[in-house]
């Protein structure tokens, strides 16, 4: 699907049906009446090197009788001309470029592939150095019912028990570049479905859509290794992204077999670590023993806005900076599980009339999490809400290739609103 064919915001809004369309057109306001009170908590925040009090306090006095507090020098007759020159930053290294999915020509069955990574600079800092690829957006599909806020569930009712149909909707209606199939049913503590059952689900999705797939496990290091191994063989050559391999797999002695299976059958891997660059580097070193770095991506953990998004933001900025400066162990494209935004209570809870319209607050929560990490350099986003998806795609395109400056657009001071 080319960019022109991707649905824009307004068509997404139409798709979402009358509820959201009416909200966005301002015709219907939903008010909830729930108060949330939290207690006291002091977070320590450093104060900086010099006290603000060293700056002179403002001098009171009316306009007519103000003594000029500023030293008045002779006014220059004309503007003193200056230039602003800013060269793009040049870095010594770049992030690895990885293609996900494979067409028939490359041994798979996908109709299209996506390429992530390849960055040579911090994104969107200079017009001459746009990222080589737009961010890739993968929409989630779950193979089992998971608790979900109403704002997410409402447009999924007809497909929620059918991963293939759900995947098809993600691609055809919401313009997903990829689909992530979360095989939560394999969780030994939930349904404990067999790797063969899981593999069958993936097969159905592969047949239903022709975009590249991400395969999500249940988090159990033993079970995921079995499931991934089974699926790797079944989907030989499809260049799936297996999400994810962890240091727990190394501890459970399942890292080697799962890496080898992924390698032998031509897939890509995602290494997952929890907000710690040293762990990420250590896991990568372990994976390199069994798997080519050229097909490895990283998930450094995405936490929701309000629940530590700043940790995710800073770790991604640090990782990308280190990668560009030459740290080979961090020169992998990164992904963000943006959907985690919905774990923040502020995304879904009724917070009273002053914070009305959960229908917009939730998708905005997901959007802001995504845009923040886009600025930090994340390459691939796992998302759910169609409005967040279309906004991220739309903004990313305009960040990469902005139109020429139009002076009137920044006017607001005398604007009649």
């Amino acid at each position: 699907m080319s960019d022109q064919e991707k649905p824009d915001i307004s068509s997404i809004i139409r798709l979402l049906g009358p509820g959201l369309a009416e909200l966005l057109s301002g015709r219907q306001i939903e008010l909830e009446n729930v108060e949330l009170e939290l207690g006291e908590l002091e977070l320590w925040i450093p104060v900086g090197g010099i006290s603000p009090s060293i700056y002179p306090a403002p001098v009171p006095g009316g306009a007519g009788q103000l003594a000029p507090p500023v030293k008045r020098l002779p006014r220059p007759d004309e503007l003193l001309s200056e230039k602003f020159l800013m060269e793009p930053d040049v870095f010594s290294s770049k992030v690895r470029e990885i293609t996900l999915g494979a067409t028939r020509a490359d041994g798979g069955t996908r109709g299209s592939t996506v390429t992530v990574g390849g960055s040579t600079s911090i994104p969107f800092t200079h017009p001459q150095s746009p990222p080589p690829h737009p961010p890739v957006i993968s929409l989630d599909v779950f193979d089992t019912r998971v608790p979900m806020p109403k704002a997410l569930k409402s447009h999924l009712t007809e497909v929620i028990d059918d991963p293939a149909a759900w995947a098809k909707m993600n691609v055809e209606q919401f313009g997903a570049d990829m689909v992530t199939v979360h095989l939560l049913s394999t969780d030994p503590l939930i349904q404990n479905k067999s790797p063969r059952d899981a593999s069958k689900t993936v097969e159905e999705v592969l047949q239903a859509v022709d975009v590249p797939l991400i395969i999500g496990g249940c988090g159990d290091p033993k079970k995921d290794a079995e499931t991934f191994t089974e699926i790797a063989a079944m989907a030989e050559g499809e260049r799936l992204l297996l999400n994810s391999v962890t240091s727990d797999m190394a501890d459970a002695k399942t890292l080697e077999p799962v890496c080898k299976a992924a390698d032998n059958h031509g897939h890509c891997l995602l290494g997952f670590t929890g907000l710690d660059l040293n762990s990420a580097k250590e896991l990568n070193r372990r994976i390199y023993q069994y798997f080519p770095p050229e097909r490895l991506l990283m998930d450094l953990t995405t936490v929701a806005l309000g629940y530590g998004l700043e940790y995710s933001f800073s770790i991604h900025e640090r990782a990308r900076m280190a990668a560009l400066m030459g740290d080979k162990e961090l020169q992998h494209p990164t992904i963000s599980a943006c959907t985690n935004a919905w774990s923040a209570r502020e995304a879904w809870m009724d917070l009273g009339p002053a914070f009305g319209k959960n229908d917009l607050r939730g998708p905005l929560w997901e959007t802001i999490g995504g845009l923040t990490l886009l600025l930090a350099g994340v390459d691939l986003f796992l998302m759910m809400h169609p409005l967040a998806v279309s906004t991220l795609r739309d903004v990313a395109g305009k960040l990469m290739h902005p139109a020429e400056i139009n002076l009137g657009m920044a006017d607001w001071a005398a604007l009649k609103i």
Partner: protein
Amino acid sequence: MKEEHKKSIREISPIDVYKLLPRTNCAECGEANCMAFATRVVNGEAVIEGCPPILTKKYEKDLSKLQELLAPPVRAVHFGSGDHQLTIGGKHVLYRHEFTYQNPPPIAIDISDDMENEQIAARIKKVQDFAYTYIGRPLSLDALAVRSVTQSPDRYAEVIQQICGLCNLPLILCSTDPAIIQAGLSVCAERKPLIFAITKENWKEMGELVLDTGCPVVVSAPGDLSLLRTLVRTLQEWGIEDMVLDPGTFHSDRIGQTIHLFTALRKAAVKNFDALSGYPILGTPISVWNGQELSDDLNRWQEAYLTSMLITRYADLLIMHSLEGWALLPQLIWRFGIYTDPRKPVSVDAGVRTFGNPDKTSPVLITSNYALTFFTVESDIKAAKIDCHLIVIDTGGLSVEAAVAGRYLTASKIAESLKEWKADTLVSHKYLIIPGLAARLSGETEDETGWRVLVGPRDSSGIGQMIRERWPPVEE
């Protein structure tokens, strides 16, 4: 543009500071010695004025050298007066992980002089009443940006007068017409408003007003950083010091221009120490209302995500039009988050925390040791005024959901923690409340610990209600 420069905050060593301190180890600052104090200063944990002796006449020169050494490359500018004064800018670095960002950007909401007086009063009340408590911290809006739409100086002065009678919020006077600004200043100069704006057309007249009143001023040159530097240089020569830069906030298909402009300016200031770029930056997401005719909610939607991007990319002050809670709340929370100390640990210590005055019959709850999870649970329990024991389990700093999925929080981990923290001595019952997000561990946990498991709410805001309704538990 690169000049011979002073050291950045990252390059200043404790020795640099120590050399200029009295070096008497008097300990009046509360530290053991001058070196310890110097270390805290370069880490941003103490201010130089925390050393009482250095404020005396004897060390006057050293103090001014220290202030120069530690001065941020982006000037700190103040507007508003008294208790309501706001400080903007004062930035040291480009990246948050280099040094804690200073001075969170105030958010100003616009008032326009074509609004009815009642409408203005209602809008001010909404700004003042807007409040949200986030992990125990009150979040609120900060200022008003008063725009001249009617282009009548009399009406503008009248509106400013009305606003001053209703609130003490710091003001930004917005017009490029010096006659309008003069009318506004005639009724509120003593409040030290920020003036918007000096442009290449009005700089001579507007500059006079700035010098007459000593108010800080925004220098506006949308999309043209060369012009911006030209204006700043000219105004500096004229003696104007307190400036704020407006590189223009473009939106929609030009949003990339805005991010480039803001980043270039900030980079010039903190990496190249360009004195003409070293001022706070004004972001005006309100510009989106100048776009093509869209529904109000679509404008709010655009304004909201643009604001959050400008909080991330170097805005030191923001002007918005939307007053809807859904659009503002994420801004206030993101601003809070990105301005926290990046060294703040991701995790808190595992162990038992007690709330209120728990006894042997009080509930026992567990949670993860991810800092934000713990703070949230802690403030929810305090708000609900419950007497209880909370066992914080070492989940590797992951939230409950991530820890369960990643097997950092398991039944055996729970059993281990109950043993380690001697849960059986805390209470005489054997009921354990686990987070709703860990519900799937309940069966195994009962097997491994011998405790009965009660599954708590999925969000800790529900703890109060759960305890009220289900505690003490009734034996089936």
